[in-house]
């Protein structure tokens, strides 16, 4: 199976030693406790518990239909689990609503790109800033007074993200005209525009070629490093997962079958059987 050659180059020599120290992994930011979710008779998730620490990169892996996306959907309130609770930043919820998740600082990207295709990259990113806007709809519509100043502030934040993701050349291009890999980047940008504490990435590298994957890996690491953003990502490419994540949760048929550092998971018998296949 795909214990493929590393798709991304190792981080720069200097990063190796400084990696964990500099990112100062902190206390538990999010914990998921005994979550169960069923659609009618189909059990999507059964009694799942794990936690995510501040500033870490946490990967969720598992075969198709293992319940990875459902897990993310529970965390940001798209689905309401029948059992269990979610603790985020000291508060406990039995159900989360998407808008509440957003105001609390949880942002996400989707497996199938969910951008406004007809709008420019810049405008798409500006929508990500919406929660940060203080002035009301009417003032925004007329672009006067304090709103004007505010809009400029927001634009500056967005420009930093454009610079960060190196998408200057497509700033004013409608998103629908961009190649897939760049659209994925824009979607990451929109999630970043909300300045989230927790970023949920649903297969950020699906369908990309090696080079695009390398770039995306670099961006994910840089986001984590520069902004200290905590990241939960779903990914299929084992090389990517092993390279960039601090800890990994493994799901299979809605159950958690493994949890630990990439090395732990790689050597876990249940995981190998279910997902990685027989090691050679």
């Amino acid at each position, binding site marked *: 199976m795909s214990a493929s050659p590393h798709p991304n180059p190792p981080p*720069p020599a*200097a990063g190796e030693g400084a990696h964990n120290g500099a990112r100062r992994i902190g206390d538990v930011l999010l914990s998921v406790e005994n979550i169960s979710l069923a659609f009618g008779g189909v059990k999507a998730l059964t009694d799942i518990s794990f936690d995510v620490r501040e500033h870490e990169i946490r990967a969720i892996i598992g075969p198709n239909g293992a319940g990875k996306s459902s897990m993310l959907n529970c965390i940001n309130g798209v689905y309401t689990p029948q059992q269990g609770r979610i603790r985020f930043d000291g508060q406990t919820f039995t159900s989360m609503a998407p808008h509440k998740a957003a105001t609390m600082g949880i942002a996400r990207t989707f497996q199938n790109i969910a951008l406004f295709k007809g709008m420019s990259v810049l405008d798409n990113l500006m929508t990500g800033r919406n929660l940060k806007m203080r002035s009301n709809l009417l003032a925004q519509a007329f672009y006067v007074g304090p709103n004007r100043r505010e809009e400029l502030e927001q634009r500056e934040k967005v*420009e930093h993200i454009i*610079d*960060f993701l*190196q998408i*200057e050349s497509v700033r004013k291009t409608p998103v629908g005209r961009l190649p897939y890999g760049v659209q994925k980047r824009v979607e990451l940008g929109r999630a970043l525009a909300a300045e989230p504490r927790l970023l949920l990435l649903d297969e950020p590298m699906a369908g990309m070629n090696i080079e695009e994957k390398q770039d995306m890996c670099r961006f994910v690491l840089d986001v984590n*490093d*520069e902004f200290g953003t905590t990241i939960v990502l779903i990914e299929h490419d084992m090389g990517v997962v092993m390279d960039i994540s601090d800890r990994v949760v493994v799901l299979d048929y809605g159950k958690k079958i493994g949890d630990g550092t990439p090395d732990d998971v790689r050597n876990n018998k249940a995981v190998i059987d279910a997902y990685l296949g027989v090691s050679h």
Partner: protein
Amino acid sequence: MSQPGGTDAVADTFPRLLQHHAAVRGDRTAIREKDLGIWLSWTWREVADEVRAAACGLAALGFKRGMTLAVVGDNRPRLYWSMAATQALGGIPVPLYQDAIAQEMLFVLENAEVEFAVVEDQEQVDKLLEIRAKYPRLKHIIYDDARGLRNYPNPELLSFDRLQELGREHDRAHPGFYQGEIDRGQHDDTAVMLYTSGTTGNPKGVCHTHSSLIAAARGDIAFDGFTAQDEVLSYLPMAWVGDHLFSYAQALVAGFCVNCPESSETVPIDLREIGPTYYFAPPRVFENLLTTVMIRMEDAARFKQRLFHYFMAVAKRCGAKIMDGRTAEVSLGDRLQYFIGDLLVYGPLRNVLGMSRIRVAYTGGAAIGPDLFDFYRSIGVNLKQLYGQTETGVYVCKQPNGKVKLDTVGPPLPGVEIRIADNGEVQVKSPGMLKEYYKRPDATAESITPDGWFMTGDAGFFDRDGDLKIIDRAKDVGKLKDGTLFAPQYIENKLKFFPHIKEAVAFGHDREMCTAFINVDLGSVGNWAERRGIAYSGYTDLAQRDAVYDLVQECVEKVNRDLATDAQLGNSQIRRFLVLHKELDADDGELTRTRKVRRGFIAERYAQLVNALFAGDTHCEIEGQIKFEDGRTGTIRADVKIRDAKTFPVVEARKAA
């Protein structure tokens, strides 16, 4: 130069020029950079302060007169300032190609004994840190963009901001130091070292003095009338002599504004936003721009397409003549149509290309196709050609306004002397001449004759109007038996400008006549054949069709007609040609990896065909080995036809077309 007041006599080094501009036009914009979507500007006075802080910072780190400093990265204001700062201290900046791999950089750093480097970002820092393992002499690496570098523990790293902080402290502690260093600078100090890519062997460092670069820049500025009002976009590699002249030397002499694009991908957008008045690009860039336009035109609505094609035909007919001010030759109707076309098509097109304000655009460095050249001139872009090399500060020949020809590079510039050696080589004395190759007296002696002529290695001659015509590399030029110059690459290029012809190989040295092998372009000729309903099984089949031979013959005869207008080359018209039965391929050793024909190898390999060409046969059977992509070899057998082409009487005194 036209600067009143005569400060030029004093401002004979770049740091002094910078001070001069800061004093004379301190509040005018000197440089811009687009950052976070906004164009930031610095005035001449601000630039002078920034450079001063950087220079003092370098001095604080121990940079001494005569030392070298590597500059690596895209065109960024701070990198240009680093060059000026280095020169202010009497050091020598060495710009490197930013896309060079670590191994290539190592050679230059070692050769130039570099201890300081100013680089753009993490990418370059990583490269230099890798090099540092093998080259510990590199002591300080200063970076512009700090992204990703926060956690690097390496003590030799320093941000540009920090460098300037150190500099300001140093400046306060030693108030007279900076001015003293500038005053110590001499006009004949080495100002910069530019490494030539060197197709054979290792790159050589070309040392230019302040006075040679300033002289070349003054000459250029006087020739085209550049002023402090001009704007350029600096987007070509900083290590290339072209960029060094346009974005640094000329900008500092004329005092015009340099604009740094946001990133290499945004150049077309930035070009449009800035609208430079003066532009330089190799032919490749002009070609890419044209291709983009043509592709977008294909997607346009039917009406717009028809409008475009109609007016482009008008432009083709009379645009270049109007550009050259020869309006008398253009009928009133055409002039009216061109005027309407300018409103509807050419103007908007120039705007899209970012060329609305261009007064002068130059291209050089390689042959430019006639269609490409005419396209830009016909839509009102004053595109001209120049000739020069790193060693001459690109100051040899330029085409004056209104006297532009496709196949010459114009007359010698003021102050330039040119002589043609017996073997046809162009030799030059130019004010912009190099001082020496760094640490390579042998190479210097090989390139400069004892009486001071630089040997360009190019073969050429002057045409009737006194314009220099470059035909080939001197070592490739031969002679026919009757003594006519035979310039294979010149003839091959002429053939290759036809879209149907992909490769050509000309033969004729020490022979009675000139002949050629042709490779047709399978894409273009295949398409042509399909439209005519000619069925073919593959390249070999298609190449030997009579219809294809007719097509090629037409092209060959056009080239002959063209050659006939030239007294020196007229007799080297192509008498006989054949279309090769296989495509020339780098895997078979027939082309170099950069797709240049290996003439000698081909002549040997197809000796049978060459002999048949000169023997006057009408066809020739050939069998040869070819290598498949998987490494196996096979044989290919074909009966290749040979045709005679019509030649034209050589016109001695024909008026320039």
